[in-house]
């Protein structure tokens, strides 16, 4: 059975199961951070295949956009302020033309969870962020190799204090337990041997205010014979990665995580669903673009049970609202957005521990529900203390040439499509039916407070 058959058979639009706004919005919620009305309409017209293709291979950023990103990055670097670092990444979530890449970068940030609380260096955290972005949809093996020598990771998991005489096992343990195989698929001896192979990295002395730098010192590296996962040789780090990737479990481990991230996070996916995906992953050099593409093209992805089967992470929720509503850039207070994400439980560059964010139901408790609601209310009605002006629904209606009286219907389509019960829909329509700005804001507030709006 090829991947074209079985659980990952591609979605083929037809009369019973047409390509519609619900599917387009679902795709954008999952593969990115929600989409504007224009993008939804564009992809509705373009069809399923073209829409997915556009996400996997987007147009390049314009020069202007690139310049803004570079400036923000430089700003973060020179200020040495982690808040500016958050601003830089949030700006990317908001405006980058490659949302799937940013979604995957966020995935890797939780997978290789590294916290600036211990690293204590904006330049190193930025470098790691760029590394994750560069490899986001690439080959997993290349990503692994580069994380071994990544400065932030070296500090975070003590690679920098690991020496031939006394190898530190922290990185080796997490490499096997969290990054590749998962608990129960290697032994303590494997950890010790891998730790030997990861030695050799030293910090070069910094001059003044320069960022920490690292180099490989062969004299600190343990080049002796090692037996790792049943294979014996004078292994180095690259060999450890190679041997690890020979284990079939790696593909399953990662595909399970990717499944929860893109498809469905309620319950454990069946083995019959993961196995073919894992096989594709292995047979295509562990290419992320390949398996993510399979998922995003599949009938399974668009099926009814898959919709609204994830809880939006704080970044998805808070950024998504701004993107969908196309809040003008001048009115977006990215620092307030950063605080909102922090308070909702997802502080970028500061994952709670080496396991990253557990996500799912743990995003929701009475404090975070309040913060999510308050963020929506701040965006819609404004917040003087934060310098956030109220949202202008009239401008949105005008830009998209939607009649005033159709405005609420359009907002429902934009944000929730058919995910609203008929009774609630009736209340929302009545509230904003005359299309006056304050009534549209009330309707918008009701929409944002529908419990389903918390789901992706």
């Amino acid at each position, binding site marked *: 059975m090829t991947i074209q058959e079985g659980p990952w058979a591609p979605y083929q639009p037809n009369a019973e199961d047409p390509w519609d706004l619900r599917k387009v919005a679902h795709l954008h919620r999952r593969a990115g951070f929600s989409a504007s009305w224009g993008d939804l309409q564009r992809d509705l017209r373009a069809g399923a295949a073209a829409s997915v293709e556009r996400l996997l291979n987007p147009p390049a950023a314009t020069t202007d956009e690139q310049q803004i990103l570079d400036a923000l990055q430089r700003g973060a670097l020179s200020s040495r302020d982690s808040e500016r670092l958050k601003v830089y990444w949030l700006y990317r979530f908001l405006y980058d033309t490659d949302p799937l890449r940013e979604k995957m970068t966020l995935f890797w940030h939780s997978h290789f969870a590294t916290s600036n609380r*211990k690293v204590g260096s904006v330049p190193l955290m930025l470098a790691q962020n760029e590394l994750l972005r560069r490899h986001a949809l690439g080959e997993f093996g290349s990503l692994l190799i580069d994380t071994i020598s990544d400065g932030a990771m070296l500090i975070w998991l003590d690679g920098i204090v690991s020496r031939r005489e006394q190898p530190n096992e922290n990185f080796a343990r997490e490499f096997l337990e969290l990054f590749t195989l998962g608990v129960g698929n290697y032994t303590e001896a494997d950890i010790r041997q891998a730790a030997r192979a990861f030695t050799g990295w030293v910090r070069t002395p910094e001059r003044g205010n320069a960022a920490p730098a690292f180099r490989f010192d062969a004299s600190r590296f343990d080049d002796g014979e090692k037996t790792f996962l049943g294979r014996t040789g004078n292994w180095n780090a690259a060999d450890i990665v190679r041997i690890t990737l020979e284990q079939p479990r790696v593909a399953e481990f990662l595909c399970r995580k990717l499944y929860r991230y893109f498809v469905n996070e309620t319950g454990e996916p069946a083995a019959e669903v993961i196995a073919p995906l894992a096989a594709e992953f292995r047979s295509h050099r562990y290419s992320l673009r390949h398996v993510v593409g399979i998922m995003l093209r599949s009938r399974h992805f668009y099926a009814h049970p898959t919709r609204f089967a994830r809880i939006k992470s704080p970044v998805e929720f808070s950024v998504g609202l701004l993107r969908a509503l196309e809040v003008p850039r001048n009115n977006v207070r990215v620092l307030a957005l950063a605080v909102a994400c922090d*308070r909702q439980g997802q502080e970028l560059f500061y994952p*709670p521990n080496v396991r990253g964010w557990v996500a799912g139901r*743990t995003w929701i*408790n009475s404090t975070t529900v309040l913060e999510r609601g308050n963020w929506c209310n701040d965006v819609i*009605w404004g917040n003087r203390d934060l310098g956030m002006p109220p949202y202008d629904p009239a401008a949105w209606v005008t830009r998209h040439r939607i009649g005033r009286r159709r405005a609420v219907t359009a907002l429902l389509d934009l944000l929730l499509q058919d995910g609203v019960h008929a009774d609630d829909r009736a*209340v929302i329509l009545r509230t904003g039916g005359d299309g006056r700005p304050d009534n549209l804001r*009330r309707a918008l507030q009701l929409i944002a*407070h529908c*419990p389903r709006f918390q789901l992706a």
Partner: protein
Amino acid sequence: MQPTRREFLRLGLGGSALLACGATVPTFLARSAAALADGPARAGGRVLVVLQLDGGNDGLNTVVPHRDDVYRRSRPRVALPAQGLHRLNDDLGLHPALVGLNRLHENRQLAVVQSVGYPNPNRSHFESMAIWHTARLRPDRGTPGWLARGLDQRAAAGGDVAALHVSEALLPQALHGGQRHVPSLVNLEQFRRRLGIPEGAGAAQQRTALDQLTNRQRGEDGSLLQFVERSTLITYTSSARLEEVMREGAAAAGYPEFYGLARRLRLVAQLIKAGLQTSIYYTQIGGFDTHANQLNAHANLLREVGDSLRAFMEDLQRAGQAERVLVLAFSEFGRRLAENGSAGTDHGTAAPVFVMGPRVRPGVHGPNPNLRDLDDGDPRHAIDFRRVYATLLDQWLGGRSADVLGGRFEHLPVLDIPRG
């Protein structure tokens, strides 16, 4: 959260909304629905309030071995006279400024655990605090905290947040590194719903419409939607209850408001009284690193601690909530037996820890500090701090301390919890 009938009706949430949730409603919600005829919120689960004294509190001048002449000889300027101390027993008295703590002692709500520390004492603030926070003798910045681990033992229920850090300081490592997000807050504004609706026609209608969106429990059993709906319901009722408590704010009288600690503890009391199901509150007070001219500074700090804690316990008592609350006060180390040349003391080792509340076995526990058998000039610890943690985790919070602490530690007889 145990919402009252009044709250349900005001929010347009009839009892039928919850009953319609069906058999799988979490028990406390089901109990609420059945008990809507009742008045005030029923007491919920147990609460541990942790008070961190930052800087190394001088244990020997807090719980004073006033008859021991080694104490007096080692501290010609800094030792406290026996008069003025609040008597704990024949050998020990509380610092004169601890009037508030003495009141707790008189009410049989104070347990003093003496000579608490750990092997190979570390006199670095940062390192010793990390040891207390992680219950590990060699932690690093990434090691999860003891409370974070304790909380991870409980399932995520989407209800009230499990722990709250009430302070402007950075989240302590004790609460860090688990799966749970622990918010820090300094005022109740953070529990307020910023609805943003402009006042005027339709504002009340909009508020009602927002609440009613939550009333409709539409999700199928076990679905994510249902989880979100219920969590939101709990959130809005908690928030509504807090608004009421804030309006009743004047009732929280009796606090020495000029003390920051008193204001923080008053906030904690408000949250407990509002029926929040949060089980851990963590706050701190700094300034205990009294290297020079110790006497005045230390007295002021202890007065703040004693008076604030007394106001806190009395507030809870009046509200009928004291029985479910325990307070643990600790510091990262004590101070040296011998004073230094600046009428102060330097970093020490073992020191007393305080457990307070109606459910303690009151009095002094553990041996008096042995001032003759010293380790590098300071008294040795007699009780490992992890025994205190084990006692609280197992007996008070219903956890499995061995998993949290990385080993079994024998309990201390500091609690008096009735069966049933």
